[in-house]
């Protein structure tokens, strides 16, 4: 039996496993396994005796649960810790939507992410375009102090950096205003996940003879969901225009499209369509 390379954590760790699987040099040497940090995230991917066979562990921290069998790992096991990636700066009104009826792990419901202001407006009887207009207009009254939230995020980022061996936040903080790096507050896009995995490989297996051609092919495949890559961008939450304006998001405007692959929606939506036709649509009679 081959030794195990284990990715532990949430869907981001699952993505790490999927990338590793596409690299033949890595897949030839290791049985590449995944251990979810929460039962809702799906099943364990891997054979029996996982702990005893682990040679490399990519351990995600900040996911509310630590690697369960870390004390059972062999002394020489190489453990590399990486952070849970999330970015609430762009969605400060995020909340749980009480209308949602999730059925995890494969179906997350029609309203997997909530918006506090939109729900308040719905409660006031607003919907459709009128609801959208009110959502835009009342943002200034409802949104928190965004500079304050940015300060908090910097503090959270510093704290996370002290707990992990891999630090992707520098890349994120350098690029979030010019590139769409997150689809939702806890779903980084593939453009963030790919370099994270490369960092993990470099930190845990520095002598692995990966050829550039192999990396190139795997990257091409991973960044193309149609070709079998991981698709973290299946649901892209709209960003309030005041948030986009305040933070100077170059990639986000009224015409930016949002994938919204939930029951009843089958095409990307503009900001207005997302709110008026989907999230705040009038209930069916």
């Amino acid at each position, binding site marked *: 039996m081959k030794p195990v390379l284990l990715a532990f954590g949430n869907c981001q760790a699952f993505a790490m496993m999927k990338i590793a699987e596409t690299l033949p040099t890595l897949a030839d040497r290791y049985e590449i396994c995944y251990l979810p940090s929460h039962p809702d995230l799906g099943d364990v991917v891997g054979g029996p005796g996982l702990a005893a066979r682990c040679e490399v562990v990519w351990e995600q921290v*900040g*996911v*509310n649960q630590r690697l369960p069998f870390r004390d059972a790992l062999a002394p020489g096991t190489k453990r590399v810790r990486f952070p*849970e990636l*999330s970015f*609430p700066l762009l969605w*400060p009104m*995020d*909340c*749980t939507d*009480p209308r949602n009826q999730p059925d995890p792990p494969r179906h997350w419901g029609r309203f997997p992410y909530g918006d506090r202001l939109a729900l308040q407006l719905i409660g006031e009887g607003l919907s459709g375009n009128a609801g959208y207009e009110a959502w835009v207009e009342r943002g200034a009254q409802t949104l*928190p102090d965004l500079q*304050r*939230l940015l*300060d*908090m*995020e910097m*503090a*959270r980022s510093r*704290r*996370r950096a002290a707990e992990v061996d891999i630090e992707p936040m520098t890349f994120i903080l350098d690029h979030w205003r010019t590139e769409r790096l997150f689809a939702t*507050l*806890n779903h980084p896009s593939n453009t963030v996940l790919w370099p994270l995995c490369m960092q993990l490989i470099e930190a845990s297996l520095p002598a692995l003879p990966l050829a550039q051609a192999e990396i190139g092919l795997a990257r091409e495949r991973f960044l193309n969901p149609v070709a079998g890559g991981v698709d973290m961008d299946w649901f892209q939450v709209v960003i309030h225009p005041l948030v986009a304006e305040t933070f100077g998001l170059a990639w986000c405007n009224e015409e930016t499209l949002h994938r919204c692959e939930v029951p009843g929606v089958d095409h990307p939506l503009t900001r207005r369509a997302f709110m008026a036709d989907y999230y705040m649509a009038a209930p069916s009679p």
Partner: protein
Amino acid sequence: MSGDTLLHAIAAIIGERLLVDPAAITRETTAEDVDGWDSVTHTLVMMEVERRLNITLPVDKFFDLENVGDLVDLAASELAKS
């Protein structure tokens, strides 16, 4: 604001944010006790505590809080200053 009143106010915020019964939130409650209370939720809870109580909490202490009681005490000390 008394300690109990402050605890109830903060428990209400946590309850709304995480869809849990505020009555189940005590001073001893930790993030690990509440499903879904991760560092993102923590940040958003802090934001809401600041907004509703009209205070500014010291950012450097945010992630050192061990339980809800610590948060109540921190908020109380900031309220006393304001």
